[in-house]
């Protein structure tokens, strides 16, 4: 398999995994928690290294999952004790991230894990970090991790499809009727943490936020069906990865950066030309956007 193939596949897997999972965050108006978790998982990764003395996949996923849930728990705790929710997110994620940064400096010499890498990722190195068992190479580790996380997320979303939908649309009614709303919340936080840590190597903590939020926000402008929105968000994630890779090769710039920029391009296109909210469409229709609704009722 060629170098280009692995990079493209990694990028597309990041786009698909983050796109689908992130769409749920957008719908729950929790986009900022993605920002928080994408940073705090660093602490999970460093923690996993302290425990296992290696940077292998499974401990990293577990560490990230734990810290991701802790982030959500701490935010919830601060919020319920009277701190504004955005301030709560700000406090929790900077403290946990800072702790991760401090701990990294203790192990800086032992492994290739630095803050620069953690923030920006380096997808260009992904193909060389392969999963090797008994001397046989099975392709990049990142691809395996992303594939596994994608599978887990898809299974969870399929199993709890109704519950996710209900607890997002009307959490109070869902609680009353017996949907385990809090469990669904933490399940989603786990999914976000896993997606983030699997994407970490490739796009880093900051750009993964773009992959989590922008495709979902774009799809939101294009459809008003829940299922279609999730699919569309994943597709936009894939297209962004592919388009971004094209940009990067053409102009010889950062691959991950271009992918994130591509999500922005899709968003702007949807914002301007989307059938529902598109600025241009509204202009063409005049100011009748609301009127069409009224006259049809």
């Amino acid at each position, binding site marked *: 398999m060629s170098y280009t193939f692995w990079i493209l596949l990694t990028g597309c897997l990041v786009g698909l995994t983050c796109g689908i999972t992130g769409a749920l965050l957008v719908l729950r108006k929790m986009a900022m928690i993605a920002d928080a978790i994408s940073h705090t998982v660093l602490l999970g990764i460093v923690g996993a290294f302290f425990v296992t003395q290696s940077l292998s996949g499974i401990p990293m996923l577990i560490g990230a999952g734990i810290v991701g849930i802790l982030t959500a728990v701490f935010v919830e705790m601060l919020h319920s004790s009277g701190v504004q929710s955005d301030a709560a997110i700000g406090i929790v994620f900077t403290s946990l991230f800072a702790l991760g940064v401090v701990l990294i400096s203790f192990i800086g010499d032992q492994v290739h894990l630095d803050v620069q890498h953690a923030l920006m990722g380096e997808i260009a190195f992904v193909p060389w970090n392969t999963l090797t068992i008994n001397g046989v190479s099975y392709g990049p580790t990142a691809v395996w991790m992303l594939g596994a996380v994608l599978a887990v997320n898809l299974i969870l979303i399929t199993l709890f499809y109704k519950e996710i939908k209900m607890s997002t*649309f009307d959490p109070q*009614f869902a609680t009353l*009727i*017996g949907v385990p709303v809090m469990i669904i919340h933490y399940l989603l936080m786990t999914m976000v943490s896993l997606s983030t840590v699997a994407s970490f190597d490739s796009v880093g903590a900051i750009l993964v936020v773009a992959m989590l939020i922008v495709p979902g926000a774009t799809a939101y402008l294009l459809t008003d*069906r*829940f299922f279609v929105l999730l699919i569309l968000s994943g597709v936009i994630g894939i297209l962004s990865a592919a388009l971004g890779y094209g940009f990067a090769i053409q102009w010889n710039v950062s691959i991950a950066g271009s992918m994130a920029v591509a999500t922005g391009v899709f968003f702007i296109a949807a914002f301007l030309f989307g059938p529902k909210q598109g600025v241009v469409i509204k202009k063409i229709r005049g100011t009748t956007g609301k009127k069409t*609704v009224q006259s049809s009722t």
Partner: protein
Amino acid sequence: MNALTVSNMSVSYDKQLALENVSFSVPEGSMTGIIGPNGAGKSTLIKSILQLLPTVSGTVEVFKKPLRSQRKIIGYVPQRSEVDWDFPTNALDVVLMGRYNHIGMFKRASKKEVTWAKHCLQRVGMQDYASRQISQLSGGQQQRVFLARAMAQDAKIYFMDEPFAGVDASTEKAIIQLMKEWKNEGKTVLVVHHDLQTVNDYFDHVLLLNKTPIAYGETNRVFTLANLEEAYGGKIAFLQQGPKAAKGST
């Protein structure tokens, strides 16, 4: 038999008591209007009964059992403004949410459930809007979708939070019609209500509330000027002929 018994319930927001020592029992098959001035804690009361808000103290029994074990028989119509109507879903899907306990975890709604949900939409006159996106519905239509969802629950006791707020006249009629049907089927209904003029027509029981219950009982006994003045303080002047006039109208 009492459908609902609330004992010594207190609720606080930021250390201020929003509800103090609320106790009352609602007989099965009754229609209770929960009346009181703004900030009296009417919505808070419903949410606390349903354990959607933390309570400081108090117990709730539904048909003599703790609420937790009675989820299947409790129906709820929240305030329309409490959910995001831009959420990507259609009317039928919202109604199907009311069948959650009957559909079960990990399963898709069966044909039978879908038929039942459609039937509920029909009973509120919304059969033509089943696949309509909820953001495309008018306020009154959205309220009817909520009613259909409550109906789909097929509950024995219903809690409605200001169902008449901001709806058109035909929707108000549809709500009244549905409440009457529920009453005929022996269901118990509690409604947070604002319009004092219609209390006599809509409800056979009234709970007058202002942080603590002023009075509870049959409408003709409880819905008196003296009680209203106590609940509303001095703000009742404009209603001088309110309760009496209401009796004469319609």
